[in-house]
């Protein structure tokens, strides 16, 4: 990476992080809403642990994987809305008049998602453990959970950037949020895949990549070290990141029509 590109990425990342930290309205809902759902689900669905084959006696531990995914979905909205605002206000035109490179813009914008992902992951994990969840993989497992959460948050954030660049509208980006949430509900969010009895739901959840991301978190929380589940989780996060970056880069070329 050239010195100029490093400077561009660094400066835009700094701006993205400052923006994120200066908008409590972005951070607070992304922390509170998933933790609220965790409290409701772990209280209401705790009897599910008595199902034969349920992997743990603590539904809280099982459900703790879900906030990491919900947090990643918030990054779609936050990263996308910030960029859409830059387009709407003309700030992107200001940047386009500098020798800025597209890669620097996208990487810099995602820096805010990294910080948000980090804050979210540490908070969810800390609150979960304080509430009594188990962490079978110990402290190294906690580090891997945070790493996976940040990767997933950034990966989903690229879809927010793509939507913003395609539409140029904050409202359009926000309308994506429920669509992404459907993916979460059609996954192994509430039950392990092998305990889902309804045929169509089992088929959809089995095909849904979110189920395997959840399995990666749960492997560390419930079992310890399942390298296969972890590798699949990281591979899916990397694949989502690659697809999202490709789509966002293509959309950026169309959006930045400078000659």
């Amino acid at each position, binding site marked *: 990476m050239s010195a*100029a590109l490093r*400077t*561009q990425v*660094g*400066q*835009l990342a*700094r*701006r993205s992080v*400052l*923006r994120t930290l*200066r*908008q409590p309205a972005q951070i607070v809902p992304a922390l509170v809403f998933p933790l609220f759902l965790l409290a409701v689900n772990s209280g209401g669905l705790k009897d599910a642990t008595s199902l034969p084959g349920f992997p743990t006696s603590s539904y809280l531990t099982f459900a703790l994987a879900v906030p990491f995914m919900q947090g990643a979905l918030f990054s779609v909205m936050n990263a996308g809305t910030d960029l859409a605002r*830059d*387009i709407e*206000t*003309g*700030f992107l*035109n*200001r*940047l*386009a*008049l*500098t*020798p*800025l490179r597209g890669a620097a813009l996208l990487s810099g914008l995602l820096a805010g998602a990294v910080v948000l992902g980090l804050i979210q992951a540490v908070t969810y994990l800390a609150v979960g453990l304080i509430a009594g969840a188990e962490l079978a993989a110990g402290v190294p497992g906690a580090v891997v959970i945070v790493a996976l959460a940040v990767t997933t948050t950034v990966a989903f954030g690229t879809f927010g950037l793509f939507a913003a660049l395609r539409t*140029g509208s904050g409202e359009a980006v926000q309308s994506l949020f429920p669509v992404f949430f459907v993916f979460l509900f059609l996954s192994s969010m509430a039950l392990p895949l092998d305990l889902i009895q309804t045929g169509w739901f089992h088929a959809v959840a089995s095909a849904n990549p979110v189920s395997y991301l959840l399995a990666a978190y749960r492997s560390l929380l419930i079992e310890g070290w399942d390298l296969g589940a972890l590798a699949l989780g990281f591979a899916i996060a990397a694949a989502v990141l690659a697809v999202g970056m490709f789509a966002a880069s293509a959309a950026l070329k169309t959006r930045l*029509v*400078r*000659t």
Partner: protein
Amino acid sequence: MADESRERAGIEVEGLVREFKNGPRAVDGIDLRVAPGEIYGFLGPNGAGKSTTVLMLTTLLPPTAGTARVGGFDIVGEGGRVRGAIGAALQEAALDPLLTGREHMRLQTALHGLPKAERSERSTELLARVGLSEAADRKVGGYSGGMKRRLDLALALVHRPRILFLDEPTTGLDIQSRTALWDEVARLASAEGVTVFLTTQYLEEADALADRVGIIDHGRIVAEGTPAELKAEIGRPTVEAVPRDPGDQDRVARALRPFGEETRASHRTGASVRLEGGESQLADVVRALDAERIAIEQLQLHAPSLDDVFLAKTGRSLEGAGEEEAEAGSEEMEALRA
């Protein structure tokens, strides 16, 4: 073109056209030349094609046809070099409300590749020049419209551009902020030799600042020249006298008649003529009225304005045209955003 020639190059535009899909022909074959160090005022109502022209000349919008060289570089083939030579404050003061003025400067100086040691010094210097030193560490969300425009100007200057594009820089500003911005733009041109391409819908702005003015309407340049030349094309000034006693209206008209053709007075009891000998006849007019012993309540000299020029060239007033074409302008911006 040799580097030395480029250093002295301004703006050259030939047959520039921009058409939008399913939309209007926003710019319809314009030709213009702006000399280095000149302030060129691009005057027209909303939707006339001013902003579209600026977007093309700043490389943010490809032209449909025609050519343009800015700072000696072709806007299509050498976009990167054009951007290196220009600074621009576009129509909306595009600022991040969550960042401070100094943080904006830091970002802009870094993205323009200024050496790290120079960034802080340049930022401080420009913030002081636009009068934002005290507000530099406050978030821009709390700035007034005038402060935002001044920061916008400072940001456009960080890399010492030879050519500056200002798209309606004073729209919505109070008189004080407007005058401060005019002073700085005039200083940039006179003291630093910066070429300024300024779009405006304010007649007095073009009149006060521009060395030459181009009037654009429906995407075409309908008149071009110095403000004085354009006004001279329209004709001589008029003088209107309003007697203290309304019964003296005919006597006033008779006293004024030798000075030129009678024109329509704006005041109900006044009389008005076009001064065939120009403004220098005003003293003779006063003497003539005094000789007739007519008590005068108001005496007004009306010099031709750029609005008169616009009226003569397009058949309507610039003020009215602005409202009429605002809708067209918003359609144009929508097309740009799409």
